């Protein structure tokens, strides 16, 4: 009697598990409502209302609540709730939120992973007429496009440039490099004055190294991906030549395969162990932190990337603002995006946090930006800068390329072998573009 009842209970229990699993599989991830396909309703001029949930990465997000106060003042019925997430866990947090349908109204997306996040199909297209596409740097704007439709609005933009030790280079009387050939002459001359590793390359051997190689590839007329973003072209002749040149800087002793990276970057540059290195516009700030305010002004200069056969190429970074389909307050979120895209607001964000405007005119209207000599090269680099391939699988493929670059730098493979291997791995990963 008891036994039978137990058996029945157990059968019910065991049978329930797959059923629950199936329900969860279907309902947990299956939100089939498709809000606004590729067309978007324009946003009107009325004040924004309601609550806007806004997720942003640290540390930028910390400065946002105070920065957004004027928007809240202008729209008295709106409240912006900023939630800051660690930048290395941001994508995980957002992906899981999307999979459960519990999403914020708007988010900040990093340019490096923007296309993989946009590929989740969780974002709403930018309403027509919300912003003027031509007001942004083209490379930044193009990164927000999926099949020709914009799904995000650029928020800040920068280009990596080459920083050099103005004091040491001038004292040595060595001319600054303008071409790839100059770069080797420059390094050789500086080495004679006792500089151990004159050139600092991006040697973390991850996606950032790959991004750095993409600058050299483009300067040599190459690209990692076909124009339609459907095929990887990693082992093209131009790219192999670029990697050969890049790794040659290490083999000839002008650069090191071990650094500078991580905490070494600032000490190597401050001590003069390295006198020319590729970094972002925050680098002078690091140097001032380490050596005292004003150190960069007297010790540091910046130049655009030495040119290959196809010109000088930097790489672009930054991020965009995007609004989620499943968000509860899309209209207000778009109004906030619109407000944040005004030139004076963008210029003020530079004063507040130090991120450079994505809107071109703000570079001229802000005196803080236009009078900073170290930013001249940055601005000059942006129009020709290369962005990471705007496809969902870039994070993975970039890591593959970075790893293969390390093999070449350490003499374990030729540039051709390494990029052939990267190409074959990338081909099996695909680009993720239909």
């Amino acid at each position, binding site marked *: 009697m008891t036994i039978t009842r137990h058996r029945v209970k157990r059968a019910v229990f065991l049978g329930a598990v797959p059923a629950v699993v199936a329900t969860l599989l279907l309902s947990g991830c299956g939100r089939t409502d498709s809000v606004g396909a590729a067309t978007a309703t324009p946003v009107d001029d009325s004040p924004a209302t309601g609550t806007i949930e806004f997720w942003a990465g640290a540390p930028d997000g910390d400065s946002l609540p105070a920065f957004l106060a004027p928007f809240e003042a202008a729209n008295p019925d709106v409240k912006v*709730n900023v939630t800051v997430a660690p930048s290395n866990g941001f994508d995980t947090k957002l992906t899981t939120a999307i999979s459960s349908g519990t999403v914020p109204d708007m988010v900040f997306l990093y340019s490096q992973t923007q296309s993989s996040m946009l590929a989740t199909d969780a974002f709403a297209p930018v309403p027509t007429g919300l912003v003027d596409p031509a007001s942004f740097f083209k490379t930044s704007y193009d990164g927000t496009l999926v099949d020709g439709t914009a799904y995000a609005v650029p928020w800040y933009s920068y280009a990596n440039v080459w920083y050099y030790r103005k004091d040491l280079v001038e004292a040595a009387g060595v001319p600054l490099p303008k071409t790839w050939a100059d770069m080797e002459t420059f390094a050789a001359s500086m080495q004679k004055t006792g500089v151990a590793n004159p050139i600092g390359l991006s040697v973390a051997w991850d996606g950032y190294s790959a991004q750095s190689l993409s600058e050299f590839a483009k300067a040599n007329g190459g690209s990692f991906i076909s124009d339609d973003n459907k095929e990887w072209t990693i082992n093209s002749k131009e790219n192999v030549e670029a990697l050969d040149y890049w790794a040659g800087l290490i083999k000839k002793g002008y650069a090191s395969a071990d650094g500078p990276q991580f*905490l070494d970057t600032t*000490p190597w540059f401050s001590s003069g162990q390295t006198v020319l290195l590729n970094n972002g516009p925050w680098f002078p700030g690091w140097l001032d932190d380490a050596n005292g305010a004003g150190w960069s002004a007297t010790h540091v200069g910046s130049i655009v990337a030495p040119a290959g056969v196809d010109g000088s190429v930097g790489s672009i970074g930054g991020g965009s603002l995007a609004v989620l389909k499943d968000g509860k307050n899309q209209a207000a979120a778009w109004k906030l995006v619109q407000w944040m895209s005004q030139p004076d607001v963008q210029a003020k964000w530079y004063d507040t946090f130090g991120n450079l405007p994505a809107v071109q005119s703000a570079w001229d209207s802000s005196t803080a930006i236009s009078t900073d000599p170290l930013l001249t090269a940055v601005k000059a680099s942006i129009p020709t800068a290369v962005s990471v391939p705007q496809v969902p699988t870039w994070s993975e493929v970039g890591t593959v390329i970075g790893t293969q670059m390390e093999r070449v730098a350490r003499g374990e493979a030729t540039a051709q072998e390494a990029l052939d291997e990267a190409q074959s791995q990338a081909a099996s990963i695909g680009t993720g573009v239909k």
Partner: protein
Amino acid sequence: MITRRSPLVSGVLYLAIAVICALMLVPFALVFFGAFKSQGEFIADPGGWLPQSFTNVQNFVVLFVEKNFGTYMVNSIIVSVATVVANVLFSSMAGYALAKLEFRGKSLVFLAVMIAMTVPYVAIFVPQFLVIAQLGLINTHVGIILPMLVMPIAVFIMRQFALGVPDELIEAARIDGASEAGIFFRIFMPLLGPATATVAIFTFLSSWNYFLFPLVVAQTQNMYTLPVGLAIASQDSNTTNYGVLLAGSVVVLLPVLILFLFLQRYFIQGIATTGLK
């Protein structure tokens, strides 16, 4: 001790163990020293050991004044205390049943304990999140606590402990007509002391240092726990603020260290008497 050691051997042993302990503590020294360093000190001289000044408490000020560490700490305390209390209660119940009661499906339950202890966390954290979402518990303390409510390691420890409790004690109570629940609460629970300390430390540690799950379940900053708060507080523009990170690590470590120092005697005793042998 049976054999008496020569002073030389004793001396060598003391020296060896003291050196090993010192080596084990080196990382803590680096954390502690680093907590008093500015970011400039780190990047100017990464090889330096001591900070310029131990009175530079700027990093702690940043944490508590600018970065809301107080809020995160309160959340962590709520989550961890609730986790410990729930685990002590539920794991002792399950452990007692597994050790002292005969029932159908017992080996199945024990198999569940063993499997739960071995499952790689990366395999299940996303589906766990979907379950929490289905239950409507996103952005709640309950949502953060629930998956940790009865940890398999806690059940395992309690079972091992219960195995060591003499059967005669329980049989005697049964003969006296005590109910099974009564036996559990009046006879077994009062004996739990050292095992409780062990379970408390294990489960407190897990919940206190829990990162990935609170990161995805807490959707507003006022729900963040300390490890998540520390991850955002220590980020500078395109780099890590090491001083703030290490100062935060000291803040995160201190409560656990204090708890451990208070409970460590019972803890070791607990492991010994639970018959984890």
